[in-house]
C-alpha cells in the first residue's frame, strides 16, 4: 500500500463520531486488515473522538475536532486532537475505571491502549489534548484483487 495522508476536521457533534469511524474503517479496508482489526481501530478512534467532544469541548458543537491519519510502509498513525479544556491529572485520567463523570465507565484510554500498539497522550489545561496512536502493520500478505 502506498503511503497516504488524510486529515479530517469536523464540528464537535456526536454524529461526526460515525464519520471518523467510517474513515478509519475504510483505511483498514485499504490496508486489507481483518474485520477484527478494523473493529478494534474503530473502537479506539470512537473513544478518542468521543473524549474530545464530550470532555474536551463539553459537547459544545461550535468547536472543531482534528483527526489525522498517516500510513507509512510499516505503520498506521492516528492523531486525535482538540483545543478544549485539557486534562489536569493525566496519570489519573488514564487509569482504568477513572472518569470525571460518574455516569461514565472510564475505560476509553484502556481500550485505546489495548487495541493499539502505541498510545501517547499530551494535554495542557486550557490548551487542549492530543492523542497519538500507532498500529504496526505486518508486511502485506499476498492479496488477490
Amino acid at each position: 500500500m502506498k503511503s497516504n495522508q488524510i486529515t479530517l476536521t469536523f464540528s464537535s457533534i456526536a454524529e461526526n463520531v460515525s464519520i471518523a469511524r467510517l474513515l478509519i474503517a475504510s483505511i483498514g479496508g485499504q490496508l486489507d486488515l481483518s474485520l477484527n482489526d478494523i473493529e478494534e481501530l474503530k473502537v479506539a478512534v470512537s473513544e478518542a473522538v468521543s473524549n474530545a467532544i464530550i470532555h474536551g469541548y463539553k459537547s459544545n458543537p461550535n468547536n472543531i475536532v482534528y483527526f489525522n491519519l498517516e500510513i507509512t510502509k510499516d505503520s498506521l498513525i492516528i492523531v486525535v486532537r482538540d483545543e478544549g479544556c485539557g486534562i489536569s491529572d493525566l496519570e489519573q485520567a488514564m487509569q482504568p475505571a477513572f472518569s470525571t463523570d460518574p455516569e461514565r465507565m472510564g475505560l476509553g484510554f484502556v481500550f485505546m491502549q489495548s487495541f493499539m500498539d502505541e498510545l501517547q497522550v499530551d494535554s495542557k489545561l486550557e490548551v487542549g489534548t492530543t492523542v497519538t496512536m500507532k498500529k504496526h502493520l505486518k508486511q502485506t500478505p499476498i492479496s488477490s484483487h
Partner: protein
Amino acid sequence: IGEIRRFLRDDHPVKVPRSYKELVYKVNRARDELSATLGREATIGEIANSIGVDRDEIVAALEAIQSPTSIYDTLYQ
C-alpha cells in the same frame, strides 16, 4: 452498565436498511468459512472477493448496523 446500555439504545435510534443486514449476514458467513479454510482470520479483501462486493460496501454496512450498544455488548461479554 445496564443503565448505560439503555441510554445508548434510546439515544441512538439507528435505521438500518434491510440490504445492509443481509450483506452483514453474508459477510459473517464468508468470514467464518474463509477463516476455517485459511486457518487464520480472513482479511476484508478476501471476504469482499468471495462474496463479490467492494470492501467499502462492507465497511458501510458494518457501520450502519453498528449501534453503540453493540460495541459495549461485544466488549463486556
